[in-house]
């Protein structure tokens, strides 16, 4: 259980360890994108952790990085293909950041630090926890950004189905900077500060 929960909060990959920033900031202009990206990462993280944990005694040390990366890249491609086929608009808005999951240091980091040293069950739990922590962080950032930057909250979007809460006046004249890179970084800065302070208190 501890293996699972530590990734959600104490070792949250985005806020605590500051890893996987690029997707965390790039795709968080909409809550739905964050959710989609989060689940993509959870899938890749769990699967790659499982397989690397299973293969850990078989892979020679000298080529362990290429080997891990191949495993990760395959699952990333699987996610990409599936998303393109069944959630095309999400795939379009996440764009290049789906293939870039492969270089998300959270995943390779977990593979190196955890899966290559632990059994399959623990590794899956660890992947799940880390992935969930990542997703929650993304959702938190995207909530702030979409509310401020677009005055709405998009929970689901696929073709004709659209779940979107519009927030009256803010929707008419949103603070658009928060939808841009600049806003993402500033929001991230305040989140990090908030998180650090909470961590300090809880210690």
């Amino acid at each position, binding site marked *: 259980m501890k293996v699972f929960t530590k990734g959600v909060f104490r*070792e949250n990959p985005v806020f*605590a*360890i*500051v*890893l996987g920033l690029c997707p965390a900031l790039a795709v968080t202009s909409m809550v739905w994108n964050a959710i989609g990206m989060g689940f993509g990462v959870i899938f890749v993280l769990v699967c790659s952790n499982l397989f690397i944990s299973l293969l850990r005694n078989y892979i020679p040390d*000298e*080529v362990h990085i*290429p080997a891990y990366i*191949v495993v990760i890249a395959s699952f990333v491609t699987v996610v990409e293909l599936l998303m393109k086929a069944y959630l095309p608009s999400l795939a379009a808005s996440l764009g290049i950041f789906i293939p870039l999951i492969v270089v998300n*240091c959270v995943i390779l*980091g977990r593979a*190196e*630090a955890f899966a290559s040293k632990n059994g399959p069950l623990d590794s899956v739990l660890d992947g799940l926890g880390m992935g969930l922590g990542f997703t929650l962080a993304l959702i938190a950032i995207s909530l702030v950004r979409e509310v401020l930057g677009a005055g709405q909250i998009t929970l689901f979007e696929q073709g004709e189905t659209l779940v979107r809460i519009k927030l009256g006046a803010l929707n008419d004249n949103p603070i658009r900077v928060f939808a841009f890179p600049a806003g993402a970084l500033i929001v991230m800065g305040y989140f990090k500060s908030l998180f650090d302070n909470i961590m300090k208190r809880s210690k």
Partner: protein
Amino acid sequence: MGSIILGIFIAIISIGLLGAILGAVLSLASEKLKVEEDLRVKELEQILPQYNCGACGFSGCSGYANAVINEGEAINKCTPGGPELLESISKLLGVEAGNLEKMVAQVHCRGGEKSSVDQYKYSGISDCNAKYQLYSGDKLCKFGCLGDGSCIKVCPVNAISYDEENLVWVDKEKCVGCEKCVDICPTNVMKMIPYSADYIVACSSQEKGKVVKSKCSVGCIACSICVKKFPEAGFVVDKNLSSVDYTIKSDRAPVSEACPVKCIIHPYKETKDN
């Protein structure tokens, strides 16, 4: 259907080949281009989390490992690793500080607004070292705590703060014994005492009792009651100042009671509320 299988087959062949070639090249290269490395660096690198996040200020875990081994960098820079990692690093490198008792810092002065006399009206930077440049501080007593908190600023773990009497005081639970505060203190009232120390003489003045009395109401006047009345409690008076020999274990509470100026005090009771 056939085309699909053919596609898959081509995929397998090409990527497999790519992998095989790269694997071969890399392993060949790793042999041909081998450079002797410090084994300990390798070992340390192994136990670092391999996030390569750069949080330690070095480029990646190997850079940090290298710095620890070859440049004597502190081992507590890896934030992602947390305390467990710190423990395993210290186990690996054997840098644990043996079985010596942990030392903590404490201010040996309780002279504040109410108790000590000022010499002049100071105007300038609120910093002990800066103030010390002008007639060794604005207190008439030149051995006391200047109270501007230079030690608070240098403390890496926020163990030093002002207590309810607005005097500088150290929280021994937080103190890690780095001695930074001892180094920065211009009047040397910050001294290291054992973690288990129960009483301290909270004064550093080496002036004669009469002089001390004219300058501060809680200064040690070297009356020697602590030595004479409680010979087994481990107090020593030297240079007009009493001090505790912590190697002697004894109940010092009655000594504290008996001190006429009440400068023998429990070093940590003020921090209870924290």
